[in-house]
């Protein structure tokens, strides 16, 4: 069940749109912000608010890789696997993170802090290899830099660090 307060906010958001479904992504982001991911129940409720069928919302949710249909860690690390990062050794980045956190690609660390995923080009080609953690982008990745970022994140419950 979505909390009433959130529902109220979502309804307002939807009411402001010309057609409800144009807010579908924003609604899902708002729910994710609070709950971390889109559960089946959340999907059904959100679809109802949007006047869509759960299937129609699922079509969108599963199209975009920033909508999570299974639980993720507090920090979602997305390593770019597009051309330039690939050339610049994205696999080494993935391997390093995997072994540091002991998770495979797609896995979530035991402490529930980190999830590792691939992502398509994020426009950081000039600073490849790059990754995104939640909403922040990190380029020119080296093991040291990754260590720094991950340690900082693990220490700070409320992360607001910079590059």
């Amino acid at each position, binding site marked *: 069940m979505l909390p009433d307060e959130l529902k109220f906010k979502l309804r307002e958001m939807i009411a402001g749109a010309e057609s409800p479904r144009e807010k579908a992504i924003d609604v899902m982001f708002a729910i994710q912000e609070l709950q971390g991911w889109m559960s*089946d129940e959340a*999907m*059904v409720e959100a679809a109802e608010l949007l006047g*869509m*069928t*759960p*299937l*129609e919302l*699922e*079509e969108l949710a*599963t*199209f975009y890789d920033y909508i999570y249909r299974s639980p993720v860690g507090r920090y979602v690390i997305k390593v770019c696997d597009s051309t330039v990062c690939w050339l610049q050794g994205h696999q080494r980045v993935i391997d390093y993170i995997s072994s540091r956190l002991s998770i495979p690609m797609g896995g979530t660390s035991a402490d529930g802090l980190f999830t590792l995923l691939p992502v398509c080009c994020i426009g950081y080609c000039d600073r490849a290899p790059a990754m995104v953690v939640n909403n922040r982008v990190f380029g020119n990745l080296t093991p040291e830099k990754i260590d720094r970022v991950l340690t900082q994140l693990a220490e700070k419950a409320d992360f607001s660090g910079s590059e």
Partner: protein
Amino acid sequence: MPRLIIDEREIEVPEGTKVIDAAQRLGIVIPRFCYHEALGSVGACRMCAVKFLQGPFKGVQMSCMIDARDGMVVSTTDEEAVLFRKRVIELLMMNHPLDCPVCDEGGQCLLQDETVSGGHGRRRFRGPKRTYRDQYLGPYIKHEMNRCIHCYRCARFYQEFAGYRDLGPLRIGDRMYFGRFSDGSLESPFSGNLVDICPTGVYTDTTARFKLRRWELERSPSLCNQCSLGCNTAANAHHRGVMRVEARFNSEVNGYFLCDAGRFGFSYSNGGTGHRERPLSPRIAGAPASAHAALTAAREALDNIAAKYGPRAIAAAGSHRNSFESQCMLDLICRTRDWRGPVFFWGPEDRRKTLSAVEGLDGEIAVSMREIEKADFVIVVGADPLNEAPMGALALRQAARKNAPVVTIDPRPIFLPCGFEHFPAAPEKIERYLGMLVWKAVEKDAARFGKDAEEFCRYLAAECESCEPPAAMARLSQLLASCSRPAIICGTDVTLQTTPAFAADCVRLLRLAGKQAGLFFLLPGAGSFGSALLSGTDDKTFADLVEDIEAGRVRALVVGESDPFHHYPDRARLESAMSKLELLVAIDYFPSETVRRASFFYPSSTIFETGSTYINQEGRVQFAHPVHCGGVPIRGGEHPPRVYSDLVPGGDHLPAWKALWQIAGTPDKDAGPGGISPEKFIPAALPAFDGLKAGHGYPVDGPRLLTAKAGFQGKWERASADARTGPENPEAFELLMVEWMFGTSEFSAWSDSLDAAAAAPHMSMNSKDAARIGLCDGDTVSVELDGGAFEIVVSVSDRTAEGVLVIPRHHSFEWRKMKDSPARVSAEKIRKI
């Protein structure tokens, strides 16, 4: 019209024809997956590549995406195009399992065909294939996602074409999935088309799964006889059982598709396990008898009655289920033997409505389903297309997709798979609303409509004066005024007697206003049009027969493919009348109550076992070819008999018309039992059939039996009079018994395959009415009628008209407790329990 050359052959095609279709006209079938004529082009699969050698396009292009143009020179066999297609099919096959032997699509699979035709014989890809979890999609469709090649046909059919929203494309890349949000029955009653339309084995027909291979089947062009539309089907039989029904293309009728009732509603024809027992053995007083004995004994018994009381003591009843052959035979017998009847209708109301529909339809205004798709404004009056003629709803959706406004005027809380505006209207208000809508659209031109229309115009103007139109009506009238091809779809079930004629007159008025207006009636059953053509002027229906039986005027009743116990609204009265009969002869393929009670029973052949003519609701004559001889199916049936015989087990059935002829005896010696054929007796009953030869002799798209010009019907005067007198007790609710797509028809009652989709019955009523008598949605009530009470769940909606209770004639409960129909029931007779 563009002329182009494809593979060195020239062809001229209509403007807008895609190159892929132009090639098909030359008999060149270019490989394709995503393209389907009904769904249009998307260019998704890249399989239809051809090479353009000359003209506005050059090089390898998708033939489904390019319109044929003058001067094009196209090669489908060019090396580059062939290689392109070979690579595409290799790519599509990359993830596909290599297990055709265990796939139910094998043998009728487009993917198999295109893989072979594309020349891809050896897999080079060595990586792991992607696999999926399949979903449960309900009783009809089995899901096997691993076989998907991502052509999108299913999603485009399901969502765009048919308008349902619970199946579609999910995920991305090579994880692309076609399915539902979660396991569950598909909501669309057109889901069976997924089986036909998916080029691979992702969706297969659960009812036929793993029972057969395509090449083992006997196949015939057949028809659906479950509603009045007469959709074209291909029937498939195997080892004396009908195994599967598929859609057969007919451009004017059903196009490429079928509804699920039509596709899956054949299991009644197969006796044995998994199906309600079909009576396959002739019976005398309930005991099995030989064919010869049963027919002879029935004939003798009838002769005795005729000798004792005169031939008028024998009556014959048919139904809307009869083929036209059977109806003509009943007609012939009654005429030549002086029996009473035949009656085809249950009550005078049904009869008059169907007759006035048939009379009001002429060749000028009648439209086909295809023309409904092209209409630019559709008014649905007193009709529930999805339930009464499902494919009609699909046609309506196609009109709505091209932005035609759709207006429904009906007492039921109508649902359609498209956008529409609903005006809840009790039956006596339907004409008034329709009149307003049409009058306001044509009013300004009325002066030049001429004498014929004068009175009607005056009447409509007065009606509009007398009451306030519902909000939104004025805007819709304006839209109607500006459209050019409006169509009216009019039902004959819940409407007043006068409504069909009124609707026809409205269409004529729209035509006078310069519009290509069309009319489309929905009739009670597949045989309704035929029975109306044969119903003489005596106005007799089954209701009269009941009186005749009660009064002792009728002592023997012959029923041909008809079950009064299913239809007659007063069961108690029917039972006592039937028990007064000295003789009841039944000929049928359903194990009905009438069959159970018959003194003599003879099994009749189903539409799958005998050639049958049906005339659909637009007057189109069509023929269903037999697909097999019938009998006890080997699969699912019992052990074959252990005695030697040259008879097919359970094969003792005859087309109803033949059985009737034998039972009735042959008064004219020249025409012995063998000497009669539909080719002779059909034209004798209906001269319009002169020169038409049954079966292969009918033109492919069916000639239409319509009068040249019917003119204004002018029955509206009576309508207004009826409406003004009003009911005696205005507080009482009007009970409207209605059809549902699943659960109300006789086919539904005897086909387990349809039962699977039938929802539990509920009674719809208006929210204000419900509040007034203290009922809520979901309450269970007992409704007390003159003949007893029944219990039913209430469904409350403000889309149901006020003052009516809408109840399905569902076979799962006994609703036949009405002394008169239409019945009324006062508020205190409805108790919450």
